[in-house]
């Protein structure tokens, strides 16, 4: 099958996943009481899983990179201390660039 159609198919499937629970709840399907408290755990679990996959692993293999860890620590500090995503991005990217210039992996 043509590559473009593969993307179209995956796009339709992805839209259906995105709309799934939103459509059901909109049709009157109720979310059970007690489950709502669990919903706020979804964001930290998914985000941490993606971070671990990208930061600790590299295509499924263990690949620690010291400059990335220091850059991440700096980003966490800036977000926590100054509540600014933009400054955290800038500080982390700049420090990773500088650390790699001085030979860190």
């Amino acid at each position: 099958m043509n590559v473009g159609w593969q993307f179209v198919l995956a796009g339709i499937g992805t839209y259906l996943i995105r709309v799934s629970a939103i459509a059901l709840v909109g049709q009157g399907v109720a979310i059970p009481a007690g489950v709502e408290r669990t919903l706020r755990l979804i964001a930290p679990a998914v985000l941490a899983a993606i971070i671990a996959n990208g930061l600790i692993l590299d295509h499924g293999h263990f690949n620690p990179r010291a400059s990335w860890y220091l850059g991440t620590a700096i980003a966490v500090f800036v977000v926590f201390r100054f509540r600014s995503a933009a400054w955290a991005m800038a500080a982390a990217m700049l420090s990773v660039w500088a650390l790699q210039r001085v030979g860190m992996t």
Partner: protein
Amino acid sequence: MTGDARQSAALSPPARAGLTAGLKAAVPMSVASFPFGLAYGVGVTAAGIDPWIGASASWTVLAGAAQLTMLSLIESHASWAVVVLAGLVVNVRFALYSIALAPAFKDFPRWWRFGLPYLMTDQTAALSLHYFTVTPDSATRRWYYLTVGLGVAAAWWAGTIAGITIGGAIPASIDIAFTVPLVFVILLVPTLVDRPALVAAVVGAGVTVATASLPHGLNTVTGAGAGVVVAALADRRGRR
């Protein structure tokens, strides 16, 4: 009628509040989405497919991790069913966001309810879920989601096009790959508000690494699912 008066007639004050807050949140996220899109665009040019067909995925699929997974499978000549399925598996996490967003979306008009999910990304979902906890107004909420969603998507589209056209001109000394985990770190920190959230994150990350040998990014789905379940059970136990 002045321009200002006309504008406020077109957009109610709650809608404008959502638009303003959304713009403020979208800017740093767009700054991060652009290089991620750029990395995808450069990847497309290296994959040996028509660059504009490769770029079209940024409109049809609109999900970076899934697009990169599909691209690497296309590159290794996987069958179309494997390519499509792998993309969908990576995107199963959107079902979790759909569940989490559903209570707020229930109050949106039909067109918003079925249109906004197209713009669902990790950034838009995470920012909106956080914003919805402090903003009860439905119009403010949907304008916020729309603004953040369009901002992140526009940067992703622009990055993709830049990647397939001028991508080769980026100096190799800039580590574009680091922007991907970095964005998620910045999104994660504000969600860690209490012990259950922290448990969800630690278990999510730990199980993802422990199941690294699973194919097609399944380890991320497994890790995220385990994080939610374990943290929910621990939370229930702690309150009893």
